[in-house]
């Protein structure tokens, strides 16, 4: 016969512990399953390696806390190292590759953001490694806007006050920092590639131009020598044909010059040499450059000017280039017997230049596109004007844009065209 205490003991075991044991035996598999499910979500698949993180803090208790909070998976798969000083962190960064560094702002040997400078100065890192330094997230017990501002100014991508840190917040901040850093590195690499390509293209054009222009100079000069009688008398017909050969050489030269201009604009190597220039000189040089062409095509070429005392603030060589291009285009697209005019007027503190003609005009459908590169309009007979590369107006517009001037067009098909721009008057 059992005692009372033995009876109580048996009852407790039967009616208290037993249910508890049963409960545990039922729930345990569920918990295990849940844990397994959670861990499955975090298992790295072949394409997603776990992130490599570095936590830097001289307070090892805090590092333990972070570790416990981070152990709850919020979708971030990672492996981490620890350091308790900048020096130790730098050593780890040199020998390992981290996706992100979480660092306390105040460390025994400096500010947490000093890691970036120390890594940049480190001889053990090559230039490519410096390009892809891990993003820094600063954590600080100070909290506050001032600490945050200081950290961001010093190069951190994010700042979290320690009091606000939860596992979810930390993992979210790390993910954002890594994504942003990867995008930035990718963009910088792409920019470098594009810049390198641009330099290559410019160098190619320079080389090509150089290799073509010397034999072109020889060819042109030999033809010119024969035309000028250096190898004996030439007939009128021979003179004409030799002149056409020289014109072709000059055309080739102009095409290369245009191509090089475009590459200079694209590579931002285009420079202006601005000075005060008498308006009269600019007009005279521009008109004399196209006078022969106008004569050959029987075009009346005139100029109407405000006065010869005015000076213009510009790069004179480039503005003469602009006016010559506009005038020669006007002559090219005007029928024999027509006229081309260069007007200059004062409007407020600027001189307005206008090149107009009574030529074929420009169709409305072409008017926006004619400033595009390589665009060629149809001539009167429906043929494309293929005497140029289609770069002239584009270059003209770019030169004026560098002067801060806009080139405007008004034109009517079958009536004529007018191109206009203005430049500041130089006031001494």
């Amino acid at each position, binding site marked *: 016969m059992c005692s009372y205490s033995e009876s109580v003991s048996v009852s407790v075991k039967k009616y208290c512990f037993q249910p508890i044991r049963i409960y545990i035996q039922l729930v345990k598999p569920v918990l295990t399953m849940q844990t397994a499910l959670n861990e499955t979500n975090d298992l790295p698949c072949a394409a997603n390696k776990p992130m490599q993180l570095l936590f830097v803090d001289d307070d090892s208790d805090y590092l333990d806390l972070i570790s416990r909070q981070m152990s709850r998976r919020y979708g971030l798969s990672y492996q981490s190292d620890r350091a308790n000083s900048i020096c130790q962190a730098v050593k780890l960064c040199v020998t390992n590759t981290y996706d992100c560094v979480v660092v306390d702002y105040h460390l025994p040997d400096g500010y947490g953001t000093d890691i970036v400078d120390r890594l940049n100065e480190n001889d053990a890192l090559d230039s490519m490694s410096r390009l892809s330094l891990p993003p820094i997230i600063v954590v600080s017990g100070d909290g506050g806007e001032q600490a945050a501002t200081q950290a961001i100014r010093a190069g951190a991508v994010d700042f979290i006050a320690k009091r606000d840190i939860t596992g979810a917040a930390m993992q979210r901040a790390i993910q954002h920092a890594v994504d942003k850093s990867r995008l930035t590195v990718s963009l910088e690499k792409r920019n470098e590639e594009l810049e390198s390509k641009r330099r290559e293209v410019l160098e190619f054009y*320079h080389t090509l131009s*150089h*290799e073509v*222009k010397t034999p072109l*100079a*020889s060819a*042109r000069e030999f033809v010119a*020598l024969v035309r000028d009688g250096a190898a004996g008398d030439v007939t009128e017909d021979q003179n004409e044909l030799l002149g056409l050969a020289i014109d072709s*050489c000059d055309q080739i030269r102009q095409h290369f010059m245009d191509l090089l201009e475009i590459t200079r604009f694209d590579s931002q190597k285009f420079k202006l040499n601005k000075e005060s220039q008498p308006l009269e000189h600019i007009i005279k040089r521009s008109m004399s450059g196209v006078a022969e062409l106008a004569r050959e095509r029987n075009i009346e070429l005139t100029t109407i000017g405000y006065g010869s005392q005015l000076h213009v603030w510009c790069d004179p060589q480039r503005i003469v280039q602009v006016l010559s291009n506009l005038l020669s285009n006007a002559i090219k697209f005007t029928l024999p017997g027509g006229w081309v005019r260069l007007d200059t007027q004062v409007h407020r503190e600027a001189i307005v230049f206008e090149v107009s003609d009574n030529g074929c005009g420009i169709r409305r459908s072409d008017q926006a596109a004619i400033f595009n590169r390589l665009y060629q309009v149809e001539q009167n007979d429906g043929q494309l004007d293929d005497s140029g590369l289609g770069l002239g107006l584009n270059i003209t517009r770019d030169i004026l844009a560098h002067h801060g001037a806009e080139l405007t067009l008004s034109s009517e098909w079958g009536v004529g065209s007018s191109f206009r721009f203005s430049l500041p008057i130089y006031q001494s």
Partner: protein
Amino acid sequence: MKKVVLIEDDPKLCKALTLRLKHMNFDVVSVGDAVSAMDASLKQQPILILLDINLPGGNGFVVAERLRAHDATKLIPIVFITASSKPEFAERASSIPRSAFLQKPFDANQLMDCMDACMAA
């Protein structure tokens, strides 16, 4: 006849320019590299030197600096000729005293105008 030293390594262009200068009534001595350039200039004492920038054995600017550093050649006008469009070439040429800059291809009038301006300076 007035003498010109032509320093140009491309044989065809050298021949073309020699013919042109003779047609303009100049006596021409031509060489094709940077090393011979100095010797020819010292020996011939020309009224003007036509100097290509890209030369075997050195570039035209180095030759020009040596010419300017020597008493016998420091006052001889130099016309740089080049097929290159690099703006730094024109800038460097402008830093050499008593010089001018001409880009290939050029015509006879441009050559004459440039030579006259350089000799008058």
